[in-house]
């Protein structure tokens, strides 16, 4: 087998747009809302196909959330989309009050999460959303690792009743799963709240989410060369988190590194720590955006400059192994 495999890439927002169209054909209760960003979030595909079930609220995110609540209270399955920063910060209280508190069936699907937004800069980056959304009761928080998983997540969300936050990204990122959601020949089944063990290992566990899952897989190969056996877990559902899988990993490997395109405060790293520390604490290291704002720049360069790479994961593994008793 040749080692250099061409990596297929696709943006998770593209997968979302396509999935909505397919699901819209089956589920007549799906209604989609946007706030003047349908061409970017890809809800435009749904809008073209089902103009009667699509509403553009203009640049008015708070109002969109309120309308989403109203539609949901009348039995609709509502998908409301805009950029992550606006979904979670221009309409945070509206989401909490009108949607989460009454436990309404609204899926806030936000594109442009993280710093891979790139050149638009800090006003459009979002490194706080996993933290701010997971802290609200009733809310399911999902960050898919690639386009295939995005499609699976959207399908699962249609069947799952309740408020949810699905965080997607702008750039084309590597597709790690086969189109039928299998990984290295193994067919998987997307379940909200269930982590996916992509690689088995015994020395350390790398827990990743979103585009950092691909980086974790790269780190796995690098570590293997150095004789380190890493387990790689993809946590696509940050809340409810797969506590059993994480505690098992803590027990079996004795050290954890988390990796996310989010602040190291309050995101995946915090969620994993909160989980294991209550039953089986092991040393941890966090890979993520440090407590700072990034800047404008090409997304890949930003990921490098702000420490979101496989080599940062490798370094974090080395650090955590020193802490391991």
């Amino acid at each position, binding site marked *: 087998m040749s080692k250099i495999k061409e990596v297929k890439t696709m943006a998770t927002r593209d997968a979302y747009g396509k999935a909505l169209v397919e699901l819209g054909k089956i589920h007549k209760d799906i209604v989609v809302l*946007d706030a*003047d*960003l*349908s*061409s*970017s979030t890809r809800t*435009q595909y749904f809008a073209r196909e089902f103009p009667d079930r699509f509403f*553009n*609220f*203009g*640049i*008015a995110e*708070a*109002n969109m959330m309120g309308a989403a609540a109203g539609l949901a209270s009348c039995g609709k399955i509502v998908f409301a989309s805009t950029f992550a*920063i*606006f979904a979670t*910060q*221009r309409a945070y209280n509206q989401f909490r009050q009108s949607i989460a508190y009454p436990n309404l069936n609204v899926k806030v699907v936000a594109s442009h999460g993280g710093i891979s937004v*790139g*050149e*638009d*800069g*800090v*006003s*459009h980056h979002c490194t706080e959303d996993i933290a701010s959304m997971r802290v609200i009761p009733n809310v399911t928080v999902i960050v898919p690792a690639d386009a295939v998983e995005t499609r699976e997540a959207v399908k699962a969300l249609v069947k799952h009743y309740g408020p949810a936050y699905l965080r997607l990204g702008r750039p084309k990122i590597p597709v790690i799963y086969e189109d039928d959601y299998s990984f290295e020949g193994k067919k998987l089944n997307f379940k909200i709240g269930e982590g996916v063990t992509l690689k088995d290992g015994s020395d350390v566990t790398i827990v990743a989410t979103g585009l950092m899952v691909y980086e974790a897989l790269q780190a796995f190969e690098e570590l293997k060369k150095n004789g380190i056996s890493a387990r790689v877990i993809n946590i696509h559902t940050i809340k409810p988190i797969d506590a059993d899988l994480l505690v098992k990993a803590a027990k079996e490997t004795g050290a954890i590194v988390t990796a996310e395109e989010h602040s190291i405060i309050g995101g995946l790293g915090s969620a994993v720590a909160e989980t294991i520390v209550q039953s089986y604490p092991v040393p941890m290291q966090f890979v993520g955006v440090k407590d700072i704002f990034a*800047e*404008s*720049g*090409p997304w890949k*360069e*930003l990921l490098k*400059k702000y420490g979101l790479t496989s080599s940062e994961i490798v370094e974090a593994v080395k650090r955590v192994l020193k802490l391991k008793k």
Partner: protein
Amino acid sequence: MTVFDHKDEPHDEELIQRLRKIALEIRKDVLLMTTKAGSGHPGGSLSAAEIIACLYFHHLRYDPENPQWEDRDRFVLSKGHICPALYSALSRAGFFPREALWTLRKIGSILQGHPDMKKTPGVEASTGSLGQGLSIGVGMALAGRIDKKSYRVYVLLGDGELDEGQVWEAAMSAAHYRLDNLLAIIDYNGLQLDGPVNQIMSIEPIAEKWEAFGWHVIEIDGHNVRQILDALDFAERIKGKPTAIIAHTIKGKGISFMEGKVEFHGKPLTEEQLKLALKELELQEKLLSIE
């Protein structure tokens, strides 16, 4: 101190021609910058070129050598995505060297994708999340009153941006506090990101809305330099309430194949298109010198 203070210059033909020429220069910079950056928002930058030229090269008082000069007029770019036009004006006004323009949106640049008041000399507010600038302007105008300063506060908004409820909260508060030192300029180019404003979210009747919120309203052609200058002056004579200038403009103004085209909202020109566009601008400059 090298204060720029030309407000009292007569609005003669010479001034008008000079400002029209600067607007063309700004357009050129915007197109060059965004194509070089590979991203950015040319459409709404072009629609505001005359407005920004009139503000920075005639009406505003500021000191490029001392950007924090206490008595300066404040300009808040609420529709922050058109910062290429602002950056062009700021560099031409002497706030920073022109070379910086070609670093737009690159790692380490002082020119961020959206305005950053801590990184860019002359930028008064960090914007980019639409709908927040007028509130910031209200705060600046209140501070000016408390400190008994004579500076004025200018806020440039997009027409699509008016969808944001916060704009109307700010409008209400500005009228409530009788902020006659505050001026809002609405770049009414008829387009937002997803399409025409009247299809995405109608804002009409817009003059009546501002009036109902307690503002004095002036409607002008936002590409007519004389009308802009007169409106800016006239607004200063309105006492007891804030003024809104509704500037009717064309998105992509000045480049035949960009005018009124929503696809150039957030997409730069290709190298090929850029060549054609620069030719058009050159021609306009020639015509101007003949006039």
